């Protein structure tokens, strides 16, 4: 929204005349943003109409007027289902671990890259580290299962070669390891990619700050602590707020591809649950109810995180 008012004056008085004047002055800018406003409306707001399904006993063949209304029955079913609480736990757990790892590792990695003096090495390291981002989860899941396999899997072979253990471990069969495996594969795949944005933020910090610090005799670590980190704080906070908003929507590819029946208690997530118990059984209404729950929780989380950071760090996205 900043772009719209970029060549307008800061609006002090908000009477009708000035609004139209600004509007006329910026008519091209408004016109240019119109398609995107429409886009958002068509793809994000218009589908909300479908939420009505959650309160109906929806049947595909009938028109809207003919649907039978059932109130909040589907929500009752949902909240009475034990499986639901289990998948909710798994979703939130993997999300939280994912957010912690997904912030710490890329930030540390970005700072480390930034401290490297050899440009050539820095470039190579950066490129190599973000390449896995472009590999599909299907392939990554195959790699991970192969690496952790008990039948000539690299990890087991290595550990046995080191003499740490005599018997290969069935990593993929242990439910309590599943969250860790998912997080680690995610870190491997996305760290390099997530680093890019922090590197860009670091590049925007004025070199005179570092020079001044050096004159004052600050060590490399002091410079990181007092200049680099505060310099990218805004970026970190904004990204954090946004990912907290997505806490509950972690998708299902990783869990679906890496999971198996033995770790089911740890691998089922909300999206899989709504797919299996909603769409696949033609329980369209029930599936919609789950997704309404999803959206409501996301909005609450987003506002809570935003409010919290506004108070603590004076930074927020709204």
């Amino acid at each position: 929204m900043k772009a719209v008012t970029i060549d307008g004056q800061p609006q002090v008085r908000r009477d009708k005349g000035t609004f139209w004047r600004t509007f006329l002055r910026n008519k091209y800018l408004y016109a240019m943003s119109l398609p995107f406003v429409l886009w958002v409306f068509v793809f994000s707001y218009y589908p909300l109409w479908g939420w009505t399904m959650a309160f109906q006993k929806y049947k595909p063949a009938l028109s809207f007027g003919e649907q039978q209304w059932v109130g909040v029955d589907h929500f009752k079913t949902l909240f009475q289902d034990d499986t639901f609480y289990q998948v909710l736990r798994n979703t939130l757990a993997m999300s939280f671990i994912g957010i912690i790892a997904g912030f710490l590792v890329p930030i540390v990695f970005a700072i480390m890259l930034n401290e490297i003096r050899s440009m050539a090495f820095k470039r190579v390291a950066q490129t190599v580290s973000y390449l896995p981002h472009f590999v599909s989860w299907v392939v990554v899941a195959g790699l991970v299962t192969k690496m952790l396999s008990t039948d000539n899997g690299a990890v087991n072979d290595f550990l046995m070669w080191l003499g740490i253990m005599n018997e290969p471990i069935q990593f993929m069969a242990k439910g309590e390891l599943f969250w860790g495996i998912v997080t680690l594969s995610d870190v491997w795949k996305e760290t390099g990619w997530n680093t890019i944005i922090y590197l860009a933020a670091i590049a925007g910090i004025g070199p005179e700050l570092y020079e001044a610090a050096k004159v004052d005799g600050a060590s490399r670590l002091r410079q990181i602590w007092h200049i680099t980190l505060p310099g990218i704080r805004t970026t970190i906070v904004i990204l954090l707020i946004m990912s907290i908003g997505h806490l509950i929507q972690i998708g299902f590819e990783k869990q679906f591809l890496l999971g198996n029946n033995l770790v089911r208690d740890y691998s089922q997530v909300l999206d899989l649950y709504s797919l299996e118990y909603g769409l696949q059984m033609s329980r369209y209404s029930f599936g919609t109810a789950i997704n309404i729950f999803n959206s409501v929780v996301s909005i609450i989380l987003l506002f809570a995180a935003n409010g919290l950071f506004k108070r603590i760090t004076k930074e927020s996205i709204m």
Partner: protein
Amino acid sequence: MKREMKWSGLVLTTTLFAGLLAACGNNNDNAGNASPSISANPTATSSASEDNLAPLTMTFYSEDPNPNWANMQDEVGKALTATTGITLDAEYAVGDPVQKSSLIAASGEYPDLISAKGSISKFVDAGAVLDLTDLIDQYAPNIKKVFEGQLGRLKYSEVDPAIYVIPSYSTVGQQYFNAGGGFELQHRVVKELGYPQIKTVADFEKAIKDYLKLHPKDENGNPNIGLSLNADDWHMFISVTNPAFLTTGGADDGEFHIDIDTQEVTYHFRRPEEKEYFRWLNHMNAEGLLDKESFVQKYDQYKAKIATGRVLGLIDQDWDYGDGEKALKAEGKFEYGYGHYPVTLTSEYKEASFWPSGFMAGNGLAISKDNPDPVRAIKFLDYLASDEGQVLMNWGIEGKHYKVEGGKRVIPEDVNNRKINDATKFQKETGIGNYNLLSAHYGDGVKDPTGNYYTTNFPEQIVAGFNDVEKETLAAYGATTWRDLFPKEEEFKVRPWGASWNIPVPTESDSVVLEKKLQDITWKRIPQAILAKPEEFDKIWDDYQKELIAADVEKAEDLREELVKARVRMWSE
């Protein structure tokens, strides 16, 4: 200058946006693409001569992907279009077929022809498919002939006796000349051990154990694997849970065991016999004969493992592990291929793979209410069901893919070679095998009025497809095909309900959710029980049974029993 730039930007964005809208709105035109011009190919044969042959394209959706579909540009497809004027524009489910069917059923825009297997109930509930009773009666003499005396079995349900589907998966008069299931052992295993009797799980276990003792490792020093199971997603049914009833004398009725006389329904994991089967698998694991990765590996890993030739034994169907075996055959390692043995838990049971279900109707093709010309659609399907049509789709074109010598249809040597060794390309070019699942047809072993088999699967042809090692093994067991080792169909009573997995369940029924919950529990508990220490097996099994009861397994059984009994009533009318 600045002004112009702004204008050009505006023009650009609006054009892009208009393009977007246009792209969104264009989807619906495909269905009615038929041009009204007169057919370029008026050479019609007798069966459709007086009919309208104007080219007409119908959209066709199937849950079963056919990678060899060539948009009817193959030889058989061209012949079909020439005779009927109809071209099919096929769309197949990618990924999970049930999900795809649900989406189509919910979208309200239906393909003209729908082959949705078990998901057809979603379309029926949505009112998406036509009742074909009258259409068949008026326009489809050949379909009527194929289903003679069994037309009543096409009815959807007792409550809704309409015909929505022309069954094409279940064939009429099918005889099984070969077996692809049971338990599998590599030919080298039985050969080295002097072809021991393989009848019970104990025999099977002994064979694996003895061979592993002799050859613990393969030539590269990797350990040989005794028995590997395929438990990735739905393969669980094929390789882990279905064998539990097949080895204990139960027919395949999906997740249920149905008493042949009283039609009492039991969730099959509650049978005490099956507990013993899983106890045996648990024992196999404890002995180190079961592949540790059985419940972790993905399907492709399983196939890759088989392709290394290290897996001595399997419990699977040939179509499920076939890709792995093909790789071995391609390398000429025929002794690493698998034979099929009718293994049971103990000798008192009969292996039930071939328990007859009779003609069971069910899965097939439906005509949607959006179909532009249902009459021509049914005539097209009727042509496929005619003698001429069935020979065309099974044998191909006379003079090209088969010859008639002395009244007998023969496949020339060179064509047959291509058919076996260049199967994919052959199917793509000729289209043989691409049209079998569209309409009613006879099964293997049925002869047409000229005295020839309708299909190309008959004993001589099957034996011709065996390699020498396979023939040697078969000969050692005194059999011509694997089928000979299994109990005969006559030894069983025909199930009057067909097969329970083939009964459509209304989408609103409680049993949909109930059965899914039970499946979740079972799929979690069975691997646990098998991988547990033997002394813990009983406890896990008891917990599992309690969990089933808590999940209302009895209600699921009752609901299923109602469905089965309703079908028996309907079919015996």
